[in-house]
């Protein structure tokens, strides 16, 4: 350091110290006098070899004095970054802001609109969640008097149909060579109006499913007025006509009352699945489980079920009898005889003496003890029990059941507050024959398939399909090409419910409204608008608002006045659209007294046959076939068998032995001259010689999702009903030699294997008790663990909220609605049958079904299983990259970006609730189907769409928690447990799922559910400390042990 020019002056306070240094002279090589005399400034400078300008401790504030070194370093770094870091980055598309900001949309906030679902004909009220103008989720409308904020699986899944890439996008007309050509509305409207005008005296036939819209009915009335030759045929695949006609005979009214299931102490279901498909299950299951309230044992009901094969209702029964459907009549008559013997008088003078319960029990190997218990319960719960016959049973059973209810005074449980309303009564089964005759005679000039699929639904031997060829003009108004539209001349694309206006009247006491939540995505129209356009005649100018105006007009002029409200019409209308419903004071029809002349129907003893009997039931998944292109529903495991993507013939193991078959073997069923080959499945709890098949599968003309799914058992139906239109005696059932592969999400365990028998009970996964046991000792479960288990690691701290769930197994009926709701909320992909076959389904939430007991009379236990968000989560320890971690609010988080996919977490999860993307399922399923731009619109923007190779699982709907949290912060209030509802909880018809804050010791959640004495954790011994409490199911049986 020879230069001294740059050296700074030393600071004054350093001088004393420096002085002492200068006194300590030593031998020194000096280069200048300053060196020699140890000038302090020089010593100070030697501590900083480089001046300020060349220092390396980078400080941005002093950037002005940038050094040469720093400059070069920065130039180098920027060049390197520009070269390596900013290379061709994956294009994520363009983000385009709103040109004109819609008034009601805040970007990032969901809007909810009330509407009415027409997924089935019950017309439940829904709230549709939309984000930036696109509907993404359907939930129930809490104001709706019937559905009360709940929805079923089909309603949840109907949103997927909105975005089905295979929806019809434009009108089509058939070309000469038989194929369909793209056309325009202008063109087809012109041609159809021409045809209508030239119809002459020939008939115009509308074939429709149940119509629930009063204004829609008015459009049809207008049509009839203009074209008087018009006839409207409305039908449903499953209807209540037999019950209605029985009531006509018994009470003189072609209707039946609703039932106060919540008030019933004893319920006997005969071949009915009122918790599944029979009637409006959303309401019924809610009312039924109000009678399974574990905190109100006095009201606890007892459910007896006699049915051919295990249904959702059967799974929930306390006592179950497996009984072929043609023995139901004898069964009811035996019950009548028994209660008669018990001193309860049965109206009329029926020869009941021949019906002996004892010999009946013997004939069908039923437990006489349980049957006697049933009689005892019915007799002691007079006026508080319900006997309910399934809608597929023949009329005489219904009449006998009415008589039994009458004798027991159960008419007190018939509801008087409301009753089902038919806007347009369904046509009688015989009337369809007339239509076909007319068609064959050439009297029908035009058929309009009014959003219906009669070729698939009508019995084959009716000959509707062939008769269709004799009709010159066949117009099909449908959402997507189906078996009927393909045989027609014109296929007109129908708008989805969520793109349509409308109203609905299904019950007395209220109307509900339907409003569009998105513009029609394609060139589609709603069916009423199509008719109104035709009615205007030429020249055809389509007005998008035509039906909206018509609807408002009809309401203003006809319906609004009936309300007697002080509101102006505009106020009324806006309130109605906002609420989704309009409440009306209405008296339901009343029923007359029991007409004993109906009893003549019961005089003849109907003996059950010993032949094979075929029972056709409604599908849980595909509905009547309408949802056969909906992957969410097809992948929803059957609530009982857990089979997906197929229907099957359920047989008992005795029947299988007789036929020499195993599950998956094809059997040939012959009814009359009609034949069906279908795979058999050995369903525990099935009556012998009974074959149960669900309808709605096996459509020939359907999109790629539904192609090849299931078998069409409609072909077994006949225009001349068997025992009933859904129950037939088979001429012959035989093994057909080939086999098929049914796939299920659960393995089917051998009842006989000692190793696996009752495993769920032995392992305390399922813990149950009986009402008597609970009454005797509330703590019979003994969940207190005597050994305090420690963890190697420090326990987590939960300073704020801590999320937890409680599942009341007394209320869970095992329907699976929550599974579909979870699919919709969390962007869960469809994987397809081939992947379910290798156990790779992606559903985050599943309903586990365990059998115990014997294969003939199994006891069924359901348990929803989802991530238990354990405090000591085994998955967290083993993840090598910390992709699954613990949050301070008790969640076990999954960080998709960090996950490399070792799957170790899944291996170490005792509950096996983690799901792995073995493929990119959006690409893998049906050749890219889920990557369609249209289908992508269904995704919830708050939830990441996971890539392949990534693990995923239930997050307790973290996006909903975060939304609630940000709302709470915005409103300056603490976050409360009740602020968050999970998607499964929202969907659960019976409120079996409770969610809340476990740190909030005053909350209802904590006090009533989390700390319930019946609450237990699954696999407590593993010391995972789950945050899902299961409240043990109580069986209302006589014994003290399950």
């Amino acid at each position: 350091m020879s230069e001294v020019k740059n050296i700074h002056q030393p600071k004054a306070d350093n001088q004393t110290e420096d002085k002492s240094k200068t006194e300590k002279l030593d031998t020194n090589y000096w280069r200048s006098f300053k060196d020699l005399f140890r000038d302090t400034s020089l010593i100070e400078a030697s501590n900083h070899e480089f001046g300020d300008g060349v220092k390396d401790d980078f400080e941005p504030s002093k950037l002005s004095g940038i050094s040469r070194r720093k400059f070069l370093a920065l130039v180098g770094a920027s060049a390197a970054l520009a070269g390596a870091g900013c290379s061709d980055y994956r294009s994520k598309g363009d983000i385009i802001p709103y040109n004109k900001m819609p008034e009601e949309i805040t970007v990032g906030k969901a809007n909810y609109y009330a509407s009415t679902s027409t997924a089935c004909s019950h017309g439940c009220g829904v709230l549709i969640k939309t984000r930036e103008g696109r509907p993404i989720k359907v939930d129930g409308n809490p104001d709706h008097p019937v559905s009360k904020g709940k929805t079923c699986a089909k309603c949840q899944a109907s949103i997927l149909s909105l975005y089905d890439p295979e929806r019809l996008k434009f009108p089509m007309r058939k070309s000469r060579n038989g194929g369909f050509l793209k056309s325009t509305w202008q063109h087809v409207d012109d041609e159809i109006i021409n045809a209508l005008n030239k119809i002459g005296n020939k008939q115009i036939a509308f074939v429709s499913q149940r119509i629930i819209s009063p204004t829609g009915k008015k459009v049809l009335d207008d049509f009839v007025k203009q074209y008087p030759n018009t006839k409207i045929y409305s039908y449903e695949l499953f209807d209540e006509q037999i019950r209605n006609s029985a009531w006509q005979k018994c009470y003189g009214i072609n209707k039946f009352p609703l039932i106060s299931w919540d008030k019933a102490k004893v319920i006997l279901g005969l071949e009915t699945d009122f918790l599944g498909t029979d009637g409006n299950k959303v309401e019924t299951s809610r009312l039924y489980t109000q009678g399974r309230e574990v905190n109100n044992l006095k009201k606890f009901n007892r459910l007896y079920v006699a049915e051919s094969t295990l249904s959702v209702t059967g799974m929930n029964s306390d006592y179950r009898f497996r009984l072929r459907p043609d023995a139901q009549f004898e069964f009811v008559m035996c019950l009548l005889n028994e209660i008669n013997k018990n001193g309860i008088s049965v109206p009329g003078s029926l020869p009941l003496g021949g019906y002996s319960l004892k010999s009946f029990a013997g004939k069908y190997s039923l437990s006489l003890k349980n049957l006697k218990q049933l009689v005892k319960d019915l007799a002691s719960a007079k006026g508080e029990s319900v006997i309910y016959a399934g809608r597929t049973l023949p009329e005489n059973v219904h009449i006998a059941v009415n008589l039994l209810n009458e004798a027991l005074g159960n008419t007190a449980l018939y509801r008087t507050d409301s009753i089902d309303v038919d806007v347009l009564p369904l046509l009688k089964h015989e009337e369809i024959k007339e239509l076909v005759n007319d068609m064959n005679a050439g009297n029908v000039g035009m058929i309009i398939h009014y959003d219906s699929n009669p070729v698939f639904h009508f019995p084959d031997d009716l000959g509707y399909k062939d008769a269709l060829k004799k009709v010159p003009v066949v117009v099909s108004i449908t959402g997507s090409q189906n078996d009927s539209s393909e045989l027609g001349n014109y296929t007109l694309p129908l708008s989805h419910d969520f793109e349509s206006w409308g109203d609905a009247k299904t019950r007395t006491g209220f109307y509900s409204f339907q409003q569009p939540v998105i513009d029609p995505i394609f060139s589609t129209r709603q069916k009423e608008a199509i008719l109104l356009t035709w009615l205007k005649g030429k020249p055809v100018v389509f007005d998008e608002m035509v039906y909206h105006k018509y609807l408002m007009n009809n309401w203003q002029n006809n319906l609004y006045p009936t309300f007697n409200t002080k509101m102006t019409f505009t106020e009324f209308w806006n309130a109605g659209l906002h609420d989704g419903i309009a409440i009306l004071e209405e008296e339901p029809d009343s029923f007359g007294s029991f007409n004993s002349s109906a009893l003549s129907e019961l005089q003849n003893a109907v003996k059950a046959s010993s032949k094979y009997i075929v029972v056709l039931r409604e599908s849980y998944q595909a509905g009547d076939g309408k949802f056969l292109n909906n992957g969410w529903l097809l992948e929803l495991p059957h609530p009982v068998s857990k089979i997906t993507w197929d229907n099957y013939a359920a047989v008992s193991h005795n029947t299988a032995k007789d036929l020499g078959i195993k599950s998956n073997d094809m059997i040939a069923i012959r009814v009359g001259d009609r034949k069906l080959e279908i795979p058999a499945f050995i369903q525990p709890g099935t009556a012998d010689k009974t074959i149960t098949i669900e309808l709605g599968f096996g459509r020939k003309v359907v999109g790629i999702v539904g192609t090849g799914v299931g078998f069409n058992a409609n072909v077994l139906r006949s225009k001349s009903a068997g025992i009933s239109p859904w129950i037939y005696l088979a001429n012959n059932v035989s093994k057909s030699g080939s086999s098929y592969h049914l796939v299920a999400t659960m393995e089917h365990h051998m009842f006989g294997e000692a190793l696996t028998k009752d495993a769920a009970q032995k392992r305390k996964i399922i813990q149950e008790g009986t009402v008597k046991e609970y009454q005797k000792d509330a703590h019979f479960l003994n969940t207190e663990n005597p050994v305090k288990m420690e963890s190697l690691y420090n326990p987590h701290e939960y300073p704020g909220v801590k999320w937890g769930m409680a599942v009341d197994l007394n209320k869970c009926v095992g329907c699976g609605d929550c599974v579909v709701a979870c699919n919709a909320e969390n962007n869960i992909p469809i994987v397809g049958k081939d992947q379910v076959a290798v156990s790779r389904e992606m559903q985050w939430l599943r309903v586990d079904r365990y059998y115990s007991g014997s294969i003939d009379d199994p006891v069924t236990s359901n348990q929803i299983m989802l991530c238990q968000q354990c405090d000591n989560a085994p998955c967290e320890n083993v993840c090598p990259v910390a992709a699954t971690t613990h949050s301070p609010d008790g969640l076990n988080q999954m960080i998709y970006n960090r996950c490399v996919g070792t799957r170790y977490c899944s291996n170490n999860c005792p509950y096996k609730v983690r799901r792995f993307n073995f493929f990119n399922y959006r690409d893998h399923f049906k050749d890219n189907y889920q990557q369609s731009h249209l289908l992508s619109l269904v995704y919830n923007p708050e939830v990441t769409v996971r890539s392949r190779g990534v693990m995923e699982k239930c997050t307790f709907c973290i996006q909903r928690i975060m939304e609630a949290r940000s709302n709470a912060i915005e409103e300056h209030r603490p976050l409360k447990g009740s602020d968050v509802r999970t998607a499964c909880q929202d969907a659960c018809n019976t409120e079996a799922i409770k969610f809340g804050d476990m740190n909030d010791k005053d909350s209802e959640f904590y006090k009533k559910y989390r700390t319930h004495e019946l609450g237990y954790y699954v696999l407590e011994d593993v010391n995972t400390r789950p945050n899902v409490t299961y409240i043990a199911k109580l069986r209302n049986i006589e014994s003290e042990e399950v």
Partner: protein
Amino acid sequence: MTKDYSVELALIEGNPPLRELDDLIAAPIDTRPSHKYNIALAITGGLLLIGAICVGLTFYYGIGMWGNNIPVAWAFDITNFVFWVGIGHAGTLISAILYLLRQQWRTGIARFAEAMTIFAVICAGLFPIIHTGRPWLAGYLIPYPNQHGIWPNFISPLVWDVFAVSTYLTVSLVFWYVGLIPDFATLRDRATNKIKKTIYSVFSLGWRHSNRHWKHYEKVYMILAGLATPLVLSVHTVVSWDFAVAVLPGWHSTIFPPYFVAGAIFSGFAMVSTVLIFVRKVFDMEHIITMDHLEKMNKIILLTGSMVGYAYIIEWFMSWYSGTPFELFTTLNRAFGPYGWAYWIMVSCNVFFPQLFWFKKIRRSIPVTLVIVILVNVGMWFERFVIIVSSLSRDFLPSSWHYFTPTLVDFGILFGSFGLFFTLILLFAKSLPVISISEIKGVLQGAQPSHHGDEHDA
């Protein structure tokens, strides 16, 4: 017949001259590959290619190409990993532990066994990478400083695995290379081809067989042997923790570390035997890799096989003694459940057949030995399969139970790993001395100062 046990048996039969040993060991390197060699290489290369295609398919489409499912999220992938790691252990045992114990008979087989260790670890190391769902992110398992401040989860056994296996590979590679240096020098001195000479010169690091060199060499070799010794125990212990640390019945077991180490040595020796039986025949080295070698290895197989058998018995005892229904079920299910067939293959191959080695005749019969060691290899692969797959397929909740069925891609990758292993072996046998030229000279009769000499007696 009486035997004088005080006299050490000749390790090399026939006492060949030193020059002849050089020629013999260098012969495969100096000659052009034979027709048979090319056929063998074509077969192993073909297998390797099949494996590469299957791995390519997996990378392109995802793990779904395999039979893995939920609950059986690990199957062939980790089975192969543990199998190959296990194979490596014999090499380290032979080269390090037997060296420290001055078991001079190891000399004839040490080099080969070490090479097999490296190749087996290479095969093994592939599986943790390809088994991940997103292999391009496998680097997340390595701790490296990053702007997010995210580190691997150090309490996860898979991270321990990364350290264990990479340490094992590094130490084995260095140990092997150090042992090769004097041989490279010998080869360099023999080489007439200029290119070969250059290559050998580079790798021999200027070795001149000087006394100083030998002194340093012996020290380094001793230290490395000392370093490698704990690895024999630690690597497979860490691998066993992948299972033992989990809560799964059938995995959660304290016996796993010793049981896995014994199993690893067992399978490793079986693999070394399998390969050496062919090598000594093909390369005319029957007098260097002698019957005595094979017999000694068979004895170790007998010992470790019995240890493994003992572990199987203890598993039964523990599952009963633990009192947990899950453990008991898993053990019963292994033997009598859907994967019972695999269990009984495992038991018969690993416990029953090796017991035949109690008979000297069988120990010294090459065909019978070959059959048994191959069966041991099969059995040990099945052991890992049984532990992994049968435990996973039926765990806690019966609702999630599912059977695992492998796909063709699974088999393709399994065979591909054998293809890789044997391709590397063949390339090794043709390019490097399969027996240590320098060490083997040290165990010739008369090469060592005798401990029975007069001077030492006093």
